[in-house]
């Protein structure tokens, strides 16, 4: 409807506040009398704790309390639960070791919190931490993902007997093995999907306060929707009534999947606030964030594909080791199958799939969901297999894909996931057109004249968006004419205030300036609140708002009919006004009337407010897909890879606000390019130390790493949700990495280099060239 409704590039409502320094992030919260928390963390990746002596530290100036695992265990604080569940083919469940909020008996990664110090100032806390004597007995550590399942690998959990916490498979391996034996051609590849550090720009932070009068504790912390976190802390860790805890997330400086975890520090901030008389504040610096936020990716994979004589896929095999870190975070152990496995095959018709995941422990920071959570990994694998397939058959990358694209929908993947819609060949053609594929050779020649090798690469992706199948949204009419949306979702950069306002404008004719988004407070968010991750907010929250709006209109018609003395069935609603015969009455008037029992039809109760708990059919997700086309120049003398042209065509279904969807796609692309080009998480394989724990060593993508990116849509509305929307946030993280790697390998075609693992750092590329020159190509 009109210029503020669906499909318009409305400028964001949030921006004026954020642009003028009026954002309010957790670190901006300062409570009267607050004291400061500092966490002493393990310098060892693996060590036995023989003794901890806090005597001197407790006597230090300004120190209020020091807690270790002995204190929390004595107080009945339970380990942090992992709700993920999965079993091997033989029914062996995922091994779930206990994770205490403070290291108990052993430390298992460098950075694990060992003691919590509460002091009058941050500096007093740090000073005291230096006086804590800990007798560590260092143990052999393991960090190297490809070695985790080896028989001689040091053990992270002795009782498990190996580091394999779960071996999950889709089916018996033999089924696909037989197909591979009789296939016309097969290709095989080993690769590492590099570990990433999410690094939202707002570092970790929390403020907590206990009110002895009410017996309630409030936790302020950034999140992606904190309901699940605070419930877990109440019910499963502290064993207190959920209503005694409240979590408030204010402006949150980026999430990317890593924010809504039941982090040890959050548990401790809540628990300790209940022991203390003054509010607590903790703010991590970036170095601490590097070792305390969950990390993403980190998989070692052997994948292969079998083709018939026409280059059509017969079967795909994928064996992956997932490095889950030292403890299980929420979904770290299952995202490879639940996030990635479900869409394995991605855009291609795969008749038989063998997918095996070994979720393995290591002496590293736990891993969990990060932008795409399993989907970027399988997209990368499938795209590499298609590329190798094209080479094996001597056909173009385009032809190979076209021979294998899924063309009929819905398409059931080998894991039973129903891909609802898409136009894969059309999207590919559109990409080639918009990206001037035809003009590539000319540009390549021009690059050559400058001493640069130019290559072009495709990354076609399909991802499954939507996450958990429930969400609740509430619409409330205020006396002053404002309309408040109480959201179960949580905007932390995605512009929900703007997009939800567009929806209310579309469905209820409410002026965007009158809409107010209320989110992130466990006291006021709807009961069914889940949060924002996995590109689900439009699909889940948006649909809930639409349906709540419809209920409001239906109810409103009855009230309006009563007010206008018209039969409700003859009342119509358009652009915020109810019409009946020659009369009309605005929604605002109806909403006000609904609060006055004397103005309501008999038997009807006000107010007009509606809450809608949306439960999606089964586990059906939506399937954003698209094609990313990159041209890159490689400097053969230094190995530097530079992106010189980037075209992205995405099918995000119905686009509610192109400005915001563009932003989501671009943000995903930047993280995808980060993974492929600069983000190098390096552990010392012998000591387990994280060596890249600052922006000095961990490469964050910068403005100068990108050209202007051409973003276009080939929208095929999803038939499985009311709005026809599909996710947009993970697109770039799925499409960009294979496109970049393919562009670089294409540029290096003359050397016959088969594969280079991400990130494509200059030295790695240079070494690949040197090896190729000396006949030792990878």
């Amino acid at each position, binding site marked *: 409807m009109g210029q503020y409704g669906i499909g318009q*590039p409305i*400028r*964001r409502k*949030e*921006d*004026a506040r*954020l*642009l*003028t*320094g*009026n*954002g*309010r*992030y957790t*670190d*901006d919260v*300062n409570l009267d009398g607050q004291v400061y928390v500092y966490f002493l963390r393990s310098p060892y990746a693996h060590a036995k704790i023989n003794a901890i002596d806090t005597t001197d530290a407790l006597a230090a100036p300004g120190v209020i309390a020091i807690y270790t695992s002995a204190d929390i265990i004595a107080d009945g604080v339970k380990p942090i639960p992992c709700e993920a569940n999965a079993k091997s083919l033989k029914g062996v469940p995922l091994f779930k070791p206990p994770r205490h909020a403070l290291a108990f008996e052993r430390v298992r990664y460098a950075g694990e919190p060992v003691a919590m110090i509460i002091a009058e100032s941050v*500096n007093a806390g740090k000073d005291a931490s230096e006086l804590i004597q800990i007798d560590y007995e260092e143990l052999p550590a393991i960090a190297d993902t490809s070695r985790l399942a080896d028989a001689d690998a040091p053990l992270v959990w002795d009782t498990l007997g190996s580091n394999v916490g779960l071996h999950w498979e889709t089916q018996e391996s033999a089924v696909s093995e037989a197909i591979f034996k009789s296939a016309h051609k097969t290709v095989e590849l080993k690769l590492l999907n590099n570990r990433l550090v999410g*690094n*939202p*720009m*707002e*570092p970790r932070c929390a403020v907590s306060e206990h009110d002895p009068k009410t017996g309630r504790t409030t936790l302020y912390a950034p999140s992606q929707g904190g309901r699940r976190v605070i419930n877990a802390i109440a019910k499963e860790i502290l064993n207190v009534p959920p209503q005694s805890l409240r979590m408030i997330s204010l*402006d*949150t*400086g*980026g*999430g*990317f999947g890593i924010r809504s975890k039941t982090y040890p520090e959050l548990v401790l901030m809540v628990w300790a606030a209940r022991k203390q008389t003054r509010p607590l504040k903790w703010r991590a*610096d*970036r*170095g601490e964030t590097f070792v305390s936020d969950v990390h993403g990716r980190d998989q070692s994979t052997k994948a292969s594909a079998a083709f018939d004589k026409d280059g059509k896929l017969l079967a795909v095999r994928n064996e992956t080791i997932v490095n889950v870190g030292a403890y299980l975070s929420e979904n770290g152990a299952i995202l490879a199958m639940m996030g990635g496995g479900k869409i394995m095959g991605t855009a291609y018709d795969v008749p038989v799939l063998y997918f095996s995941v070994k979720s393995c422990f290591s002496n590293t920071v736990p891993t969990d969901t990060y932008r795409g959570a399993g989907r970027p990994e399988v997209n990368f694998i499938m795209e590499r297999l298609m590329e190798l397939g094209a080479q094996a058959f001597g056909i173009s990358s385009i032809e190979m894909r076209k021979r294998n694209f899924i063309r009929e929908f819905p398409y059931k993947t080998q894991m039973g996931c129903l891909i609802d819609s898409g136009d894969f060949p059309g999207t590919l053609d559109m990409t080639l057109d918009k990206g001037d594929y035809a003009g590539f050779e000319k540009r390549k020649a021009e690059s050559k004249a400058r001493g640069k090798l130019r290559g072009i690469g495709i990354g076609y992706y399909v991802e499954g968006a939507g996450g958990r199948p429930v969400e609740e949204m509430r619409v409330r009419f205020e006396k002053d004419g404002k309309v408040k949306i109480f959201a179960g979702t949580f905007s*932390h*950069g*995605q*512009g929900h205030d703007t997009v939800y306002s567009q929806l209310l404008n579309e469905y209820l004719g409410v002026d965007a300036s009158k809409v107010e988004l209320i989110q992130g407070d466990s006291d006021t968010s709807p009961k069914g609140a889940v949060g924002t991750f996995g590109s689900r907010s439009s699909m889940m929250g948006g649909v809930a708002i639409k349906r709540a709006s419809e209920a409001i209109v239906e109810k409103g018609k009855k009230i309006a009919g009563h007010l206008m003395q018209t039969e409700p069935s003859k009342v119509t609603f358009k652009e915020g006004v109810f019409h009946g015969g020659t009369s009309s009455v605005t929604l605002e008037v109806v909403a006000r009337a609904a609060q006055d029992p004397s103005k309501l039809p008999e038997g009807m109760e006000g107010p007009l407010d509606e809450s809608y708990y949306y439960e999606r059919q089964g586990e059906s997700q939506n399937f954003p897909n698209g094609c990313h086309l990159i041209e890159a120049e490689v400097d053969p003398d230094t190995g530097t890879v530079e992106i010189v042209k980037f075209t992205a065509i995405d099918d995000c279904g119905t686009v509610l606000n*192109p*400005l*915001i969807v*563009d*932003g989501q796609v*671009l*943000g*995903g*692309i*930047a*993280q995808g390019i980060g993974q492929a080009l600069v983000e190098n998480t390096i552990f010392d394989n012998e000591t387990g130390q994280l060596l890249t724990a*600052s*922006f*000095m060593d961990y490469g*964050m*993508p*910068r*403005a*100068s790493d*990108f050209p*202007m*990116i051409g973003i*276009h849509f080939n929208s095929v509305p999803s038939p499985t949700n009311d709005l026809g929307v599909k996710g947009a946030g993970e697109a*770039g993280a799925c499409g960009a990495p294979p496109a970049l790697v393919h562009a670089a390998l294409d540029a290096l075609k003359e050397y016959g280099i088969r594969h280079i693992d991400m990130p494509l750092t200059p030295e790695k590329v240079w070494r690949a060239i040197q090896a190729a020159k000396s006949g030792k190509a990878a």
Partner: protein
Amino acid sequence: MAKISMTVNGKTVSGDVEPRTLLVQFIREHLGMTGTHVGCDTSQCGACNVHYNGEAVKSCTILAVQADGSDVVTIEGLAKPDGTLHPMQAAFREYHGLQCGYCTPGMVMVAVDIARRLPCADEATVREELYGNICRCTGYQGIVEAVMAGSEAMQTGVLPLKDHH
């Protein structure tokens, strides 16, 4: 403790600080102006950028005592008192140059600095000049467009509008 005094957003402010207090801590904790953010420890991310004697600097890498007697402008000092956005702020909104908003204050302060020094900077120059500011959300495209458009608006008084597909 050291007594310091400086001008912040046109107003004279003073305080007693420990020598180890950083300028950003003075601004956030002593003055209670929380628009300036801290995003890293190593002077890389630029979230803490302010104008110091008219130039963009990282306020996390200056001691408050060093800034004694200086003239500081923070993100809170850019818009007009009536709320009218500075042309660069308006450009960031127009070109979707922000998502979560955390890096934004520093990004805008640096953008204004770039526009003043290099009013006609081309895209490549703008990208290079943004090297000291990290954004994790936007992929920088909206930021780069905003810096160029905001720069033009600072000169002409007219913000070129985004042409959206």
